[in-house]
């Protein structure tokens, strides 16, 4: 009989269950292992990666500083605007868009069409458009046209202050005037914002939001008086029209402080287009233009001679003719290449003249004889001391230093220099030189910005350089000579009602392109008032007036009179010339 051993029977079902269990266990193990890996081991790294995807950093542009005139009136400010752009690939009807948007925004439709049909991903339609205009255009719902916020510089005083303030480029960087010279201060420091955004780019309110705030640019308080600036510009524009001149420039300085009250000219200059009304590029002649000053330079010659006591006001020079020949035969040729022949503006008899008469009647020959007593070396020293040949240091970019042509070996340059030739100056240099006489012999750096104010309200006042050039006594004598020019000399049209005024006319022939003097002149007048205690100096230059207006007395002095009268009224100066 066979014995059957009872044992554990092989059960395939159990085996399968065990296998499935093991597999499931392993699978869960893998999941658990991955879970631990993701949640524990690599969690910080993954969280950081996610954060980086959500985090967006953007620059916070600083608010550019404002510019004010001396009365607190706004001259320049930055506001928000919209820049319209397009994604050319999305624009369905580029021709229609170019015509409609081009017409409305003042952009050439052909240029716009070329942009809209280009293969670029981003093209500007027009930058810095007024917000309302941008909103209206976007409301049309044109596919592929969008806007982004940008800031734009606005000059509410327009042409009136543009000569001083200057302008910025499309990116808001200073290009001219105060805008460029104070670029670093005005610009401010950009800030940064770091924030989390959702999939639509919208900031997550409870997300990370770190802000380093932008530091606004400093505000500039200028010395410019806007109403006076306007009156000066009007006076210039009127004279340009009346005298059919090419240009007129005027600068007014407060005597005691060197503060520039007005600095403008005609043709006017539009800060938005950066062009003059004639379509010419703008350049501020008051600071950058140089010209031969002619007789206005005689102030320095006479001040030097009086200071060095080589002459007195009453010193008589005998036999002063209307022609002086410093080089033999120079006057035989009517050719300015042969230097050494000097003539007075008007022909006159040979007479004895006092120093005062020479100055009042603006005799070139007499002035050269006064300069002769001084000598070339001392004359040049005084010309330099009065600030000619070097920039004044005014806070306006790219100031011209002028030219002093006293080359060694030049036999007649000293004589030319004494009467305002062989030197080239800026109107501002001449105004500063006259202001030194008005300020009892103390020369002060002209300046346009009186103070800066930062975001914390801290005020910084400009520091000024001063130096003594001549004595108080000499300055007073010179002021009396200047008064004589206006009261009985060549500058009578520079008189101002109610005030005693002193000044000097200047008429210099312009150099032609061939280097020879032409018939065209630059007529100028520089003067001050009230003459006993001057408060304001005004310098006027008229470029190429018509023949009738070719002298400083005929064209520049009337402009001076208008500007000076307004300046004295604006400053509330008590009249001193009432008889």
């Amino acid at each position, binding site marked *: 009989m066979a014995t059957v051993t009872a044992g554990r029977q092989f059960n395939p079902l159990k085996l399968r269950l065990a296998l499935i269990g093991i597999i499931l266990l392993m699978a869960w193990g893998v999941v658990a292992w991955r879970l631990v890996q993701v949640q524990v081991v690599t969690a910080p790294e993954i969280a950081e990666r996610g954060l980086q995807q959500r985090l967006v950093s953007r620059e916070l542009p600083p608010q550019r500083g404002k510019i004010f005139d001396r009365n607190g009136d706004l001259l320049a400010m930055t506001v928000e605007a919209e820049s319209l752009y397009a994604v050319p690939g999305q624009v369905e009807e580029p021709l229609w868009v170019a015509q409609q948007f081009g017409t409305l925004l003042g952009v050439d439709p052909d240029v716009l069409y070329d942009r809209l049909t280009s293969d670029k991903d981003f093209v500007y339609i027009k930058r810095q458009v007024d917000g309302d205009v941008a909103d209206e255009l976007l409301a049309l719902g044109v596919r592929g046209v969008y806007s982004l916020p940008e800031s734009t510089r606005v000059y509410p005083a327009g042409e009136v202050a543009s000569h001083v303030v200057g302008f910025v480029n499309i990116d808001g960087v200073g290009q001219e005037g105060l805008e460029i010279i104070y670029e670093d201060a005005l610009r401010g420091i950009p800030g940064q914002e770091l924030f989390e955004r959702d999939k639509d780019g919208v900031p997550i*309110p*409870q997300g990370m939001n770190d802000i380093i705030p932008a530091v606004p640019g400093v505000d500039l308080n200028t010395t410019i008086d806007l109403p006076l600036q306007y009156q000066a510009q009007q006076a210039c524009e009127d004279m340009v029209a009346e005298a059919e001149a090419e240009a007129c420039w005027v600068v007014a300085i407060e005597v005691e402080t060197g503060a520039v009250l007005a600095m403008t000219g005609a043709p006017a200059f539009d800060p938005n287009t950066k062009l003059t009304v004639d379509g010419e590029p703008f350049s501020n002649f008051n600071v950058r233009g140089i010209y031969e000053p002619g007789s206005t330079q005689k102030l320095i010659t006479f001040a030097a001679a009086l200071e060095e006591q080589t002459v007195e006001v009453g010193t008589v020079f005998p036999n002063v003719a209307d022609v002086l020949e410093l080089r033999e035969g120079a006057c035989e040729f009517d050719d300015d290449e042969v230097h050494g022949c000097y003539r007075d503006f008007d022909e006159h008899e040979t007479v004895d003249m006092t120093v005062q008469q020479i100055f009042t009647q603006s005799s070139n020959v007499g002035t050269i004889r006064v300069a002769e007593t001084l000598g070339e070396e001392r004359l040049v020293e005084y010309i330099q001391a009065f600030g000619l040949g070097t920039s004044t240091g005014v806070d306006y970019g790219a100031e011209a230093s002028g030219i002093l042509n006293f080359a060694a070996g030049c036999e007649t340059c000293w004589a030319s220099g004494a009467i305002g030739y062989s030197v080239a100056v800026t109107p501002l240099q001449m105004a500063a030189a006259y202001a030194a006489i008005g300020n009892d012999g103390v020369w002060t750096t002209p300046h346009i910005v009186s103070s800066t104010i930062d975001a914390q309200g801290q005020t910084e006042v400009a520091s000024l350089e001063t130096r003594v050039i001549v004595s108080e006594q000499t300055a007073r004598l010179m002021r009396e000579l200047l008064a004589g020019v206006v009261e009985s000399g060549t500058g009578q049209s520079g008189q101002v*009602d109610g005030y005693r005024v002193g000044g000097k006319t200047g008429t210099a022939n312009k150099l032609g392109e061939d280097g020879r003097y032409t018939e065209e002149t630059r007529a100028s007048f520089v003067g001050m008032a009230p003459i006993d205690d001057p408060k304001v100096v005004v310098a006027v230059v008229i470029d190429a007036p018509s023949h009738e207006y070719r002298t400083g007395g005929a064209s520049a002095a009337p402009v001076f009179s208008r500007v000076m009268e307004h300046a004295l009224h604006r400053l509330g100066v008590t009249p001193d010339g009432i008889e």
Partner: protein
Amino acid sequence: MSARPQPAPDPRQRLRVLRGKKIRKPTIAPWMIMVIVGITAFLGLVFARTSLDNSAFELAELNAAITQQAEINRELRIEIARLENPARIAPLAEEMGLVIPAETHQLLVDLDRDAPHLVQSNQEDTQ
């Protein structure tokens, strides 16, 4: 046989003390307290979070409003400056008949006299 009188049963022996079910005061189970506390904390947390989110949205809206008002303020300042521009005012004043006087008069005040006297200076047109 004589019957002996039975002693009267002690009335206390007839009374039995029965141990009844203990009447318990109704109490809240600790777990329920924990649940309630937990739910309350959760709701509080949700409420706080919601409030915080609302505040953040309000803050964002306020910031946007401040920015907008500041921009409006800047535009108004520019508008004021444009309106005050002498180049705008002077022609308007001229249209209204306001011109710079052709004659300049100075009023000299003599402190030793009772009334000021008028001095008329040059008659030239100063324009």
